[in-house]
């Protein structure tokens, strides 16, 4: 069986995909991953997951320009200029 290995470099860091090991069961997979991804103290923790428990999702489309989802979809400069001008005109 193939097991995917995710490793955490130090506390607080995210777990990132590191590779995979071939093992007959979870116990062997953990023992193998322990040394393949940790023998130099390069990881503080590992997640070891059977490959078929990992589901890949790749179908992403943005066909109709969802500008509200993006930082560059908001153009505030002109509106802010107008608002400031009106506020200073009414206070003078």
């Amino acid at each position, binding site marked *: *069986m193939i097991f995917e290995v995710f490793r955490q470099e130090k506390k607080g860091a995210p777990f990132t995909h*590191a*590779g*995979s*090991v*071939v*093992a*007959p069961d979870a116990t*062997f997979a953990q023992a193998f991953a322990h040394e*393949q991804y940790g*023998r*130099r103290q390069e990881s503080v923790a590992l997640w070891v997951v059977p490959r078929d428990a990992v589901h*890949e999702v*790749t179908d992403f489309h943005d066909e109709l320009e969802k500008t509200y989802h993006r930082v560059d979809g908001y153009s505030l400069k002109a509106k802010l200029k107008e608002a400031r001008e009106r506020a200073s005109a009414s206070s003078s």
Partner: protein
Amino acid sequence: MTNAAEFLEYVQSGGQVETGDSMPDEYRAKLVKFIEMHGNSELMGVLPEREWILRAPTLQRKLALTAKVQDEVGHAQLIYRVVEDLGKPRSQCLADLVSGKAKFHNVFHYPTRTWGDVGVIAWLVDAAAIISQKALLKCSYAPYARIMKKICWEESFHILHGRDVILTLMNGTDEQRELVQEALTRWWGPLMQFHGNPIPREKDPMYIWRIKSQGNEEARQQFLDGYVPQIWELGLTVPDPKLRKRDDGVWEYGEPDWDELRHVVTGHGPKTQERLELRRRMLEQEAWVRSVVLAEAA
């Protein structure tokens, strides 16, 4: 993107390919062959070095050398996983290796004779390999490029170990210095052949598909530029009277023996058959372990 021309343009402009992406058959075939040869080389490279683990003259050297060889086995594991995900099972790779059908790099077909070899291999042979490996960080096939990061990181320890062994010998007795010189003299030929014949990179399919990101001669020049000064500053002699650096920075050298290279990688090296026989014997002897315990087809 199954159109080969589009795919070629994609990889040549820096596009990355993942395992599930569609790819031209030629790309996939060349990829598998190249990566498999790398895996075979790591696995065969272990054999000349592991004898010296047992003979290491201090506890520190024994630990460092065991760790180095362990890393190489670890690299073989990473590499064969990539090949397997491309469709060729590990057991098939191992079978092709021991039957002589698949190749491995020239340097691992030669004997190791002394502790001087241990130093020269870790210092210079590994250096030659690292130059190629650093170039592979940019491989168009992303899973392979990713494992190269771990491989290059681990190789940096090997380089330090090699340098330490060599410097200790060079600062030791005359006899120890002679161990280094004698080993260097023997290894120079295979080292110069290691990066392959100087096919221009535009004609090298590996470069065209951006599996390799550097040509053979480029790699060799990098090796000479980095390491000949290191060799000369220790007072060692390179057995090539033609070796010199031109004013334009290019290294000139005596023509490597390309016949020897061809002869060796096709399975006729001094130690090829003996080493393949050891692998074959261990695979057979421990086949029961794999089938009973590791749930592999034996």
